[in-house]
C-alpha cells in the first residue's frame, strides 16, 4: 500500500494541469471573442455580400433654374472570374463589338494586380464600361450563356448645352491614389476630375447604399440578411444651382469662336460668376464615357491647349487695366488726388530712355488719365511714391506698401474660387527685386513698367474681372464663385463675406468716371452702346511670343452696376480691337437679354473672326477641334475664315 500511495500527490498535478489548460483556453477565447475585433469584420466580409446601390449624382442647374447637366443610365459589364465557365467567347465578343484579341487582353489586364490593385477572383471586376443601349439589349438576352458575367447599372453625365466644359469638369474612374485616400470609393467608381464635378464631388456624389445579402462558403446568395432591415438606402447627391447664366455662357462661347482667350463675368454685388469662358473649348461629353481616354489624348496634344482653363490658370501681364488699381492706391496713400496733373509728351522720360505713350492732350488730371490711358501719368505717380523719403524710410518699405494694396485688391494670391486649379498670378515684393538687383541696386525707374501693368506683374482673367467688380462696388469684393445654392447644405460663408480693399469709397468716383469717359470718348469707344452706360478700361498684355493680347475690363451700368466683366483675346493686339466689342455685347446680352438688331452684324463678325495663332493655319485649327467629337462641336462656328 505504501508504494501505491507514494504517487498520490500526483493527482494534484494532473488536476492542476487541467485547470491551467482550461485557463489558457478561456484566455484565448477572451482574446478572440472580446478583445480582438478583427475577426468580427472578417466574418462580415465572409458572410455578407454588400451589393452596392449607386446614388444618383446631383444635377446642375443654372442661376435661372435651367437644367444643365443630368444623368443618363449606362451599363457596365462586370465579371467574377472565379465563376466564369467555358462559354462561346466569339459570340460574346460579337455581341459587345470587341475583338477576341481585345477580350484576352482585357482579362489579362484585370488579373494584373499592378494595374488593378483590388483584383480578386471572388469579387466583381469591371470588364467593360458604358455599353450602348443596343449592346446592352443584345447582351442582356444572352447573358445566361455567359456565367460569371453580369451587368451593373451606372449613370453617365449628359449635357443639355454642349458648353462650359472647363466649368462643369469631367468624371473619370477613380485611380489608385484616390482609392487609397478615400474609403468611400471602390474600384470602378467614378469621381469628378475637374471643374465643379471635382470641387463639389463630395456634395454631388451623395452616399452609396447597400443591400446586404447572405452568401455561403461557395459564394451562393442565400437571400437578404434580416429581410433587408440592415440595408442602407442610397442618398442622392445634392443638386447644385450654379451662378452661371446659361444664355450668357453660350453667347460668350459663341463670341469666342475661333479665338484663344477667356471671358469672365461677375455680378459685383454678390461675387457670383455669370459666365466663365475658356477658349478654345470642347464638348464636355467628349471627356465622359468610353471615348474619354482617346479624346483626352487628342486634347492634350492640341497646341492650342484646349484643356487649359484660361480664366483661372492663365497669368498674363494685366496691361493698362492695372492703371485703375494704381490710381486707387496712389490716392489712398496721398501721392495724387483727383486734382493732380502730370505732363505727357508722348511718354515718360527717365535717364536717356523714354517709356512711350500715344498722342493725347497734356497735361492730364486723374479722370482723363484713365480716359486716355496715359502711361506717363502712372509712371510719375509710382516714381513719386517710391521716391518719397518723407513718408517711407526706403524704397523697400514704399514698395511693400504698394504690394499690400495690390494683394488687398485681390492680386498675387488665389482668390479662392470654388473651382480647382486656380493660379495666383504674381505681385512681386521688395525681396523679389532685392534678389534680382541687390539691396541698393534698384530705384523707382528700374521697375517703372509695373505702373502700367507690364514687367513682372501677372494676373489671371478672373483677378482682372474681380478688380472691375471692386471698382463697381467702390471698395470691396465677394470672392467669386460658381455655385449659388447647394441642395440641403449651406454655401461656404466666404462666398457671402465682403473683402474690403482698404481704399476709401470716394476715391473710386474718379476711376468710375474715367472708365465711363474711356468708353464714351476715350480709348474704349469700341465698347460704346447707346442706352447702356458702360465703364471700361482697355489693356494690352505684351506677349514676347507674338502679337500682344487684347484685354478689356468693364462694368455696367455706371450707376448701379449689375455686371463686371473681363475679356482676354490672345494675340489680338490692342485691347479695343476685339476684347472691347465682345465685352460690350456680353453686357448688352446680359442686361437687355437681347442684342439689338443693329448690332447683330458685330456679333456675326466677331463670331466668324479667327485670330491667327502662332504657326498654325486656321483651317488646321478648325480641323483639330473637330476631331474631338464630330457630332457636336461647341467651338466650330460656321467655318468661314476672315
Amino acid at each position: 500500500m505504501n508504494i501505491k500511495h507514494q504517487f498520490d500527490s500526483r493527482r494534484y498535478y494532473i488536476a492542476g494541469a487541467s485547470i491551467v489548460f482550461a485557463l489558457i483556453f478561456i484566455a484565448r477565447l477572451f482574446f478572440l471573442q472580446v478583445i480582438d475585433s478583427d475577426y468580427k469584420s472578417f466574418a462580415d466580409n465572409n458572410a455578407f455580400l454588400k451589393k452596392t446601390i449607386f446614388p444618383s449624382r446631383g444635377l446642375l442647374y443654372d442661376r435661372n433654374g435651367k437644367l444643365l447637366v443630368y444623368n443618363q443610365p449606362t451599363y457596365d459589364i462586370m465579371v467574377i472570374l472565379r465563376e466564369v465557365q467555358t462559354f462561346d467567347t466569339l459570340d460574346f465578343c460579337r455581341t459587345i463589338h470587341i475583338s477576341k484579341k481585345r477580350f484576352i487582353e482585357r482579362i489579362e489586364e484585370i488579373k494584373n494586380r499592378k494595374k488593378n490593385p483590388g483584383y480578386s477572383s471572388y469579387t466583381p471586376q469591371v470588364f467593360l464600361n458604358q455599353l450602348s443601349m443596343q449592346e446592352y439589349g443584345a447582351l442582356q438576352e444572352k447573358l445566361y450563356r455567359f456565367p460569371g458575367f453580369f451587368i451593373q447599372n451606372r449613370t453617365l453625365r449628359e449635357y443639355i448645352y454642349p458648353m462650359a466644359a472647363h466649368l462643369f469638369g469631367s468624371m473619370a474612374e477613380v485611380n489608385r491614389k484616390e482609392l487609397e485616400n478615400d474609403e468611400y470609393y471602390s474600384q470602378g467608381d467614378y469621381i469628378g476630375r475637374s471643374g465643379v464635378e471635382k470641387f463639389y464631388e463630395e456634395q454631388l456624389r451623395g452616399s452609396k447604399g447597400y443591400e446586404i445579402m447572405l452568401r455561403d462558403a461557395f459564394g451562393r446568395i442565400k437571400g437578404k440578411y434580416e429581410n433587408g432591415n440592415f440595408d442602407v438606402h442610397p442618398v442622392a447627391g445634392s443638386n447644385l444651382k450654379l451662378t452661371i447664366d446659361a444664355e450668357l455662357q453660350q453667347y460668350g462661347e459663341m463670341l469666342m469662336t475661333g479665338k484663344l482667350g477667356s471671358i469672365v463675368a461677375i455680378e459685383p454685388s454678390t461675387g457670383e460668376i455669370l459666365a466663365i469662358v475658356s477658349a478654345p473649348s470642347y464638348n464636355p461629353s467628349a471627356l465622359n464615357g468610353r471615348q474619354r481616354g482617346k479624346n483626352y489624348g487628342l486634347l492634350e496634344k492640341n497646341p492650342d491647349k484646349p484643356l487649359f482653363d484660361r480664366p483661372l490658370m492663365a497669368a498674363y501681364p494685366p496691361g493698362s487695366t492695372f492703371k485703375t488699381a494704381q490710381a486707387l492706391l496712389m490716392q489712398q496713400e496721398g501721392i495724387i488726388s483727383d486734382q493732380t496733373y502730370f505732363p505727357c509728351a508722348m511718354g515718360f522720360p527717365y535717364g536717356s530712355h523714354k517709356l512711350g505713350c500715344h498722342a493725347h492732350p497734356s497735361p492730364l488730371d486723374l479722370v482723363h488719365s484713365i480716359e486716355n490711358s496715359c502711361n506717363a501719368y502712372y509712371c510719375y505717380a509710382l516714381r513719386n511714391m517710391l521716391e518719397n523719403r518723407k513718408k517711407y524710410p526706403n524704397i523697400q518699405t514704399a514698395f511693400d506698401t504698394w504690394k499690400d494694396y495690390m494683394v488687398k485688391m485681390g492680386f498675387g494670391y488665389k482668390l479662392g474660387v470654388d473651382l480647382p486649379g486656380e493660379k495666383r498670378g504674381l505681385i512681386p515684393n521688395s525681396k523679389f527685386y532685392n534678389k534680382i538687383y541687390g539691396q541698393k541696386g534698384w530705384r523707382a525707374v528700374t521697375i517703372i513698367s509695373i505702373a502700367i501693368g507690364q514687367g513682372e506683374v501677372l494676373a489671371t482673367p478672373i483677378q482682372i474681372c474681380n478688380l472691375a467688380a471692386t471698382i463697381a462696388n467702390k471698395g470691396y469684393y465677394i470672392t467669386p464663385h460658381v455655385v449659388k445654392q447647394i441642395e440641403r447644405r449651406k454655401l461656404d460663408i466666404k462666398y457671402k463675406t465682403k473683402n474690403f480693399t482698404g481704399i476709401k469709397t470716394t476715391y473710386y468716383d474718379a476711376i468710375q468716371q474715367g472708365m465711363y469717359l474711356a468708353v464714351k470718348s476715350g480709348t474704349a469707344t469700341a465698347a460704346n452702346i447707346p442706352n447702356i452706360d458702360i465703364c471700361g478700361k482697355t489693356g494690352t498684355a505684351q506677349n514676347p511670343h507674338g502679337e500682344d493680347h487684347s484685354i478689356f475690363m468693364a462694368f455696367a451700368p455706371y450707376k448701379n452696376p449689375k455686371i463686371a466683366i473681363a475679356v482676354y483675346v490672345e494675340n489680338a493686339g490692342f485691347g479695343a480691337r476685339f476684347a472691347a466689342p465682345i465685352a460690350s455685347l456680353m453686357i448688352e446680352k446680359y442686361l437687355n437679354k437681347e442684342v439689338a438688331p443693329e448690332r447683330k452684324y458685330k456679333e456675326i463678325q466677331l463670331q466668324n473672326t479667327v485670330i491667327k495663332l502662332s504657326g498654325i493655319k486656321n483651317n488646321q485649327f478648325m480641323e483639330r477641334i473637330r476631331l474631338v467629337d464630330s457630332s457636336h462641336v461647341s467651338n466650330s462656328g460656321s467655318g468661314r475664315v476672315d
Partner: protein
Amino acid sequence: MFLILVLAGWISIYASTYDFDQASIFNYEERSGKQLLWIGLSIAIAFIILMLDSNIFDRFAYPLYGLIILLLIATIFLATDVKGSGSWLKLGGGINVQPAEFGKFATALALSKLIGGYQFQLNQLNNYLRVALIIGLPFIIIVLQRETGSALVYAAFTIMLYREGMSGLILFVGLYIATLFITSLKYGDTLNGITQVGDLLVYLIIVVVMILYLFTQTRKQVEGQRIAVSVLSLFIFCYLLSLLGIQINYAYVGLIAALSSLAYLIFLTLRESSKDFLAVIIITIGALLFSLSVDYVFSSILEPHQQTRIKVSLGMQDDPRGVGYNVNQSKIAIGSGGLTGKGFLNGTQTKLKYVPEQDTDFIFCTIGEEEGFLGSLFIVGMFLAFILRLIYLAERQRTVFSRVYGYCVVSIILFHLIINIGMVTGLTPVIGIPLPFFSYGGSSLWGFTILLFIFLRLDLARLERL
C-alpha cells in the same frame, strides 16, 4: 452532468446544421435528428452498462481488448474511404461505424487489468514493455487506417501512467522533445544575416535545461554556476567581438557552449567517477542528436499534409484559402461571437457553412459564434468541472483496477478537450478528433458513453463491496 453535455451538444448540432429551410430539430433526415437517435441509444447503452455486474469488466477486459483489436485489423481491409481515412466500416443504410472510437475503452480496460494486477509496479522494464504493447498495438493499427488523429489519443494514456508511478522523467523528456521540435521548426529565419534563430534557441534551451537540472535535481550547484557564468561570458565575449565588426554565427556559439558544457560534465564524471551527472549527460546528448535530426525527420518521415498542418499551426505558413482555411474560418466564427454571441441559430459563419466539419470536429465554433464568450466560458467550465469530478471519483476507488480505469477516462477526455478546443482556437495543430459528447457521430458518442459509464458502474461497485 453527462446529460447536460450531451443535450448541449445535440442543440449545437441542430444549430450548426440548421439551414434556412430547416423544419424541425427532431427531423430524422437531418443530423440533429439522427444525433437524437444516437443519444437515445447511448442512454440505453448506459443503462445496460449500469445493469451489468461490475466484475464482468474485470473478467472480460482482455477478451474484449482482443476482439476490438481484431475488429480494428479487419477494418483496415474492409473500410471504405471517407475523407482520406480508412477507419470507417459501412454497415449499410447510410450508417457508418468507426471502430477506433471503441478501441479507447477496450484499451483502457486492458490497461487497468494489467496495472491492477497483483503486485504490478511500473518500474520494471518488462512491465513498461507490456504497457507499451497494449497501447502500441491499437495505435499502430489505427495509424495504418490513416487516422493519425485518433491514434494520437492513445498518447493520452501517459497521463494515467504518470499517476500510476511512471517516472516524471519520461513525461519531462516527452515535453522536452516536443519543445525542441517546435522551436527548431518554428524559427526558421535568421538573425544578423547568418545566425539561425531556431538553432540558437534550441542550443540555449539545451544549456538552460542542463543548468536547471544541475540546480534542482542534483546537489552540484557549484558546477551549475560555473557553466552558467562561462556560457554567459562566452556570449558577451562574442557580442563584443561582433562590435569590432566580426560577423559571428551565434548558432555556432550556442553549439560550442552546449558541447563544451557537456565535455565539462563528462570530464567531471570521469574524474570523480560520480553518477550524479549521468542522467543530465544522457539527456543533453539525446537532445543534441534530436535537434540535429529534426529537420531530417520533419522533411523525410512526416507526410506532406502533416508537415503543412504543423507549419500552419506554428504560424510558419499563412494560407487562409488553403490548409489554414479551417483554422482561420474557425477563428473567425468564434471571434465574431463577441461577448454574448449572436444568439441561438443566428450565427452567420456557421449557418453559411464557412467552417468545414462544423458539426463534428469544429462544433465548438457554433457555440463560440452563437453563444459568444459567455457560452464558451460555460462549456469550458463545465468540462473542467467534469474532469475534476472524474479525478475525484477515480481517487476514491478502492481497487487499483477501477482507479486506473478512472484515470484512463480522465486522460482520454482531457486529451480530446485540449486538442479539440486548442485546434478550433488555433493553438494546436488540426488533428481530427471530436469534442467529447458534442460532435455529431454515433460512434464517438457511444464510445465516450461506454467509456464513461463503465467507470460509473465501477464506482457504484465501490459501494456494493462495503
